[in-house]
């Protein structure tokens, strides 16, 4: 209320709480058309488990459509949140995509770390248009699919051996 944000965000409005009489700043809800979240485990039913410190369940509930990219596809009874995870019900998820290593170059907690060297390379490349174009070509446009991308970035980590075979995307059937 008394920060300089109110000077630069003229669109923000205040409202008087009719119960306490206090004045508060109110903001409109953020309603994404599509949210894409990364999760450790998911089932073909559309249930997932995700990291408890993030707000991915809230994001999934707020968005009009939510796509969950998962490290591992498991049976519905095995979609059980670990100690530092939360469960997200399938009513909030519209599609599940199996892509081990799908969070790269960021990390997936307790499965693989952020690839700091790759992020440094990206930051350096993005200093000018030419460098960014070269980065995009090498890592995004040239690899024909996710597996090639993981090879090009020399990805190590994740659930060893759980990748690539069979149908990679599980469109949920409710």
């Amino acid at each position, binding site marked *: 209320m008394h920060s300089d944000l109110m000077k630069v965000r003229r669109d923000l409005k205040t409202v008087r709480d009719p119960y306490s009489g206090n004045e508060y700043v109110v903001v409109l809800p953020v309603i994404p058309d599509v949210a894409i979240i990364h999760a450790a485990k998911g089932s073909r039913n559309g*249930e997932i488990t995700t990291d408890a410190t993030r707000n991915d369940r809230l994001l999934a509930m707020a968005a009009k459509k939510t796509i969950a990219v998962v490290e591992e596809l498991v049976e519905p009874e095995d979609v059980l949140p670990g100690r530092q995870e939360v469960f997200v*019900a399938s009513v909030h998820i519209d599609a599940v995509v199996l892509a081990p290593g799908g969070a790269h170059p960021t990390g997936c907690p307790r499965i693989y770390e952020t690839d700091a060297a790759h992020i440094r390379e990206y930051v350096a490349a993005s200093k000018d248009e030419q460098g960014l174009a070269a980065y995009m070509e090498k890592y995004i446009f040239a690899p024909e699919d996710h597996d090639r991308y993981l090879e090009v970035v020399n990805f190590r980590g994740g659930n060893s051996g759980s990748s690539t075979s069979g149908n990679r995307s599980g469109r949920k059937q409710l």
Partner: protein
Amino acid sequence: MTNMKISDQPAQTPEVMIGAISRLLRDGEWVATGTLSPIPAAAALLAKMTHAPHLTTLIYGDPDFRLSEGFHELFALAQKGKIDVFFLSGVQIDKRGSINLSMLGDYNHPTVRLPGGAGSSMLSALVRRVIIFTTSHNQRLFVPKVDFINATATDDAPWRRGGLSHVVTPLCTMAFDGTKKEIILESLFPGVDLEEVVRNTGFDLGIGGRSIPIMTPLADEELAVLRGPVRERMRLIYPQFAASVWGS
């Protein structure tokens, strides 16, 4: 005995109601049922297993329906506009389609105090269609005007998405006429006399000169699915209801 088909036994009243509600559900809809709603739950399952394979069923108490942290998520889905159909009932229902779940008589000195409206007011405004179901049909239930309004069939709230679609009772189906904003009789269940419905309803059913059709009886396939896979699922979700309709 051994040659008898599963559908040879005549349909019981709850089965006819389940069939009537099932036929009101459209393929692709998201259908949610709340507490104490075995007939709508069975209807949603029957619809999904027959004419509406892409129905999404959100059945309270269904072991296959897993929420993250609580039933409030269902209310949030309704607010988002994801729920197409929800089911309500009441101790009083009036001609304008309002329902009473709170008390009978004067609010401050009620003759009967009831659990209350729960989410009925919000849900009736934010889902696309409400279907009211009742387990009796008499003038104590269908009254000219409810003693207390918990949820309206329609109103001019700017956030309103839909409203009352149908009322399904043990005798008939009624429709909500959006122009007159009144409940009107739509069809009679097989074997039910028009006079019986009129006599047991405390308001004018808008029959006028209309000839009221008899509902097409449940097909063999509908009865077979209802008494087979739907019954099996209902034994897990609503065991007492399943036992009362189909035996153990």
